[in-house]
């Protein structure tokens, strides 16, 4: 049993949602996007949008390709209050008032009305509702490497797989359904089963059923979407055997429930053993259509008439009424097909029936094929030769499997009726196309954009070729240039895919933790993801408490995420001097310097500290996010310059705790006998000391603007050091701080966060960091570029800002209503008691404005640092 909108529907073995619902008498599966027309089962091959339903809260599920399962909750997606009785169907009466290009023509003025109109339209249109409260599933992604990927497990695809396997290649075959499930009993089904058996026996062939190929990407890479996640297939070559879709017929009433594609009706009758209709008119123009006719008759469907070209009409059994060379003029009915008007031999006739079955021709299902540009892709079967025979499908499949290209046969142009729906997804009619054409939109690409035909969930699977035929017909009478191909560009996904499948594997990027992680959790810290790390945001519920501990007492921060490097070897100094812009020559052992890393264009890439060690080596720290890049960058220069340098990335090997605050020295002195005074470890300087028995490299740092010692212990001994510091500082009021307090502490000092306060083309001059660049050095990376830029006027710079009301980060800075900058950092400073910030500002008429607006706040440019401008506290 499954449940349809509260109604219980019995299911049988082998049922899809579509077959179960059809057996229970459901005929309206959907309401169309704009006009709210009834839509019923049509293709049953997963190509059209007519049977999209919501299953267990998941919208956009194709009822015809989804197995019915016990307890499923199925809802039809469109229509209000329901798809069965849809009040919004009245929309169709207003259709003449909504011409093609309605949106472009109508929503121009007044601008203020847009949000209102948009809300009303959004409610009336669209397919399904995204489940807002549903927790996303964490799906996995896996990579598979193979010699040959075959997309499509039909006769051609399986033949290709077997041929490739015979040559010793490893083959992966994927099919969006189960092998053969869409094919009605008959010779094709029999051959398919035999080939499938053989493929399953082969050791070289892996078969992935219910795996949907999303697209063909460079590599080649073909992602397959499946229930459990994503499979990224990396094949050497690809065989596409995605088959063909039966041609969508265009005539008035062509989208009524009861109009079926032949394969759909045959599948319902032959596979699911459910009669698609009581009395049907069949219009056929293919060999396959004759087989469909037989399946329908066997199932007990009364055939009112068969419309067929002469050569096929001769092969129709004599007891069936054949109308040679007849064609469908229109289908009539309200809830579904009631009668068909046919034309045959100049005569028109209305035939009563409850179904019209169309086997009018075949169009290649070629979305993937058209996506492949430079990729090694071969097409086989119906895809290469639409409507090919069983033997031809197998033969072309084997050829493609051996790597031999198959000469394609172009599909025939499609004859269009008087009117009718061209694009089922977007409710675009033939008349809309004609109107758009008359307005001057005269190519397939531009018609697509103007009418939105081919832009729905089926991505042009049904209507793409109709649109092409429409343009081709115009070209034939000289109304369109014929040079450009009439098909529009194919883009992934080739089939509708749930977003959560595309996101498969994203959760696999784990967050890094420092050795102090457990300490933070025990202290009740709120944690956040910062780059690839998990870091404490705050310890106290209010970050200002963390902040106050640093400014007034003593505090700890886990900065183990900082990049930490040892540069040693004969050429250590030569490297550091050659690549960094700071003065290295005069950096004495035991002293350190603020370090900028520039790229060759002179733009700031990273920053950190440079410490000269007594043995001639250097210790470098970088930002947490820049550590990986810093290592690669340094190694590149070592390699390019041919230097003898040992570079050791000690980021993971060392922890780091910043002990900061006016009482920092007092705290540390309780745990060490090593001297800590300004003579022993001056600012900026560093030394190796032992704290609570743990050997550390201690670096005086100025980032938070207080007396600070950054201790680098071995990672494994970090927790022990943290505990000792916390215990020893209890009576001093020690309290750790997290990223939220740090953001304000550094802002009060006017220190920039690279990436937040900076733009990719910021050179040191724009950031007020020229003091960190020794232009008198013979060479450093970026020097030539900096010298060149120094001759140009400064067009933008980072400034300190004081506000009269708290602004928001990211707000534009305006001067007389003109945007001249942006706030990149801001906060109400607890120390100063007013809102401060950093922001970049453009020069206006050669000068930098001083008074600006940021939203409702007045912003005044002020010098930085905001706090302790002389740096007395840092140097203490």
């Amino acid at each position, binding site marked *: 049993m499954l449940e349809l909108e509260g109604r219980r529907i019995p299911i049988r073995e082998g049922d899809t949602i579509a077959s179960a619902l059809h057996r229970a008498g459901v005929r309206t599966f959907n309401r169309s996007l704009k006009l709210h027309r009834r839509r019923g089962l049509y293709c049953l091959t997963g190509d059209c949008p007519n049977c999209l339903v919501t299953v267990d809260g998941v919208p956009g599920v194709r009822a015809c390709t989804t197995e019915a399962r016990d307890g499923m909750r199925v809802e039809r997606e469109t229509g209000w209050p329901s798809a069965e009785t849809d009040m919004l169907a009245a929309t169709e009466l207003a259709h003449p008032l909504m011409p093609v290009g309605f949106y472009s023509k109508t929503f121009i003025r007044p601008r203020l009305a847009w949000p209102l109109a948009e809300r009303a339209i959004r409610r009336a249109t669209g397919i399904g509702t995204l489940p807002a409260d549903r927790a996303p599933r964490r799906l996995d992604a896996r990579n598979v*490497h193979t010699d040959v990927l075959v997309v499509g497990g039909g006769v051609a695809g399986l033949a290709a797989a077997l041929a490739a396997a015979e040559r010793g290649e490893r083959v992966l075959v994927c099919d969006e359904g189960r092998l053969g499930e869409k094919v009605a009993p008959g010779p094709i089904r029999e051959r398919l089963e035999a080939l499938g058996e053989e493929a399953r026996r082969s050791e070289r062939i892996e078969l992935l059923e219910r795996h949907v190929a999303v697209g063909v990407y*460079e*590599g080649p*890479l073909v992602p397959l979407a499946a229930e459990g996640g994503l499979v990224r297939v*990396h*094949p*050497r070559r690809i065989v596409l055997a995605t088959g063909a879709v039966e041609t969508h017929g265009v005539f008035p009433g062509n989208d009524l429930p009861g109009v079926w594609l032949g394969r759909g009706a045959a599948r319902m009758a032959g596979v699911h053993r459910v009669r698609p209709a009581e009395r049907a008119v069949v219009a056929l123009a293919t060999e396959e259509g004759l087989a469909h006719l037989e399946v329908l008759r066997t199932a007990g469907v009364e055939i009112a008439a068969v419309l067929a070209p002469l050569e096929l009409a001769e092969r129709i059994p004599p007891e069936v009424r054949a109308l040679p060379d007849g064609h469908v003029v229109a289908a009539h009915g309200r809830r579904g097909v009631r009668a068909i008007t046919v034309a045959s031999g100049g005569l028109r006739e209305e035939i009563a029936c409850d179904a019209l079955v169309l086997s009018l021709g075949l169009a290649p299902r070629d979305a993937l094929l058209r996506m492949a540009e*430079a990729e090694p892709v071969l097409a086989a079967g119906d895809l290469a030769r639409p409507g090919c025979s069983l033997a031809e499908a197998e033969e072309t499949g084997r050829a493609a499997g051996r790597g031999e290209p198959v000469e394609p046969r172009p599909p025939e142009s499609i004859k269009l009726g008087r009117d009718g729906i061209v694009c089922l997804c977007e409710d675009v009619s033939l008349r809309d196309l004609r109107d758009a054409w008359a307005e001057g939109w005269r190519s397939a690409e531009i018609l697509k954009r103007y009418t939105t035909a081919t832009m729905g969930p089926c991505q042009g699977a049904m209507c793409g070729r109709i649109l092409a035929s429409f343009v081709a017909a115009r070209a034939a009478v000289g109304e369109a240039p014929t040079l450009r191909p009439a098909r529009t560009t194919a883009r992934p996904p080739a089939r509708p895919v749930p977003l959560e499948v595309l996101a498969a594997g994203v959760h696999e990027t784990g967050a890094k933790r420092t050795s102090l992680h457990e300490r933070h959790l025990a202290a009740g810290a709120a944690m956040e993801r910062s780059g690839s790390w998990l870091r404490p945001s705050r310890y106290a519920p209010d970050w200002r408490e963390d902040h106050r501990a640093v400014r007034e007492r003593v505090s700890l921060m886990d900065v183990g995420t900082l990049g930490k490097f040892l540069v040693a070897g004969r050429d250590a100094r030569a490297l550091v001097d050659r690549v960094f812009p700071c003065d290295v020559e005069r950096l004495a052992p035991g002293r350190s310097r603020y370090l900028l890393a520039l790229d*060759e*264009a002179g733009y700031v890439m990273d920053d950190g500290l440079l410490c000269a060690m007594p043995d001639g080596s250097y210790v470098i720290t970088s930002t947490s996010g820049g550590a*990986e890049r810093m*290592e*690669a960058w340094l*190694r*590149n220069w070592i*390699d*390019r*310059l041919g230097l003898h340098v040992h570079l050791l990335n000690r980021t993971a090997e060392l922890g780091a705790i910043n002990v900061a605050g006016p009482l920092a020295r007092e705290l540390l002195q309780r745990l060490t006998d090593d001297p800590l005074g300004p003579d022993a470890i001056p600012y900026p300087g560093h030394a190796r000391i032992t704290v609570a028995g743990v050997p550390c490299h201690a670096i005086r740092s100025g980032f938070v603007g207080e007396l600070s010692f950054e201790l680098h212990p071995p990672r494994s001994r970090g927790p022990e050091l943290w505990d000792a510091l916390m215990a020893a500082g209890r009576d001093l009021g020690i309290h750790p701080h997290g990223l939220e307090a740090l953001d304000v502490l550094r802002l009060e000092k006017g220190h920039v966060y690279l990436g937040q306060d900076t733009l990719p083309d910021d050179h040191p001059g724009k950031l007020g960091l020229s003091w960190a660049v020794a232009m008198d050095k013979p060479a450093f990376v970026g020097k*030539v*570029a900096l*010298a*060149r830029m120094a001759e140009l006027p400064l067009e933008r710079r980072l400034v300190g800002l004081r506000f009269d009301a708290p602004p928001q980060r990211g707000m534009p800075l305006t001067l007389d209503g003109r945007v001249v900058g942006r706030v990149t950092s801001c906060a109400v400073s607890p120390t100063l008691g007013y809102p401060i910030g950093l922001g970049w500002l453009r020069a206006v008429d050669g000068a930098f404005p001083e008074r600006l607006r940021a939203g409702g706040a007045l912003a005044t440019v002020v010098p930085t640092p905001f706090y302790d401008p002389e740096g007395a506290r840092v140097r203490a």
Partner: protein
Amino acid sequence: MGLMIPCPHCGPREYTEFTFGGELRELEAPDPQADFERVYLRENLPGPQRERWFHALGCRRWLTLTRDIARNEVLDA
């Protein structure tokens, strides 16, 4: 199968183990104008290109190779 890169230290490895380092450029240029072109302008011509790759998920060393960027084939390393 994507691109296999012959690492002199690790042998042929998937390109996904590497970080792309761009076109190989000269270390210096004779004058500021030439340096401007060296730093900011790329050749990016279809055909063979000398370029840098960093074996980030391997030996963490840099290598220089020639790749036909129109065909995405490594020509020599």
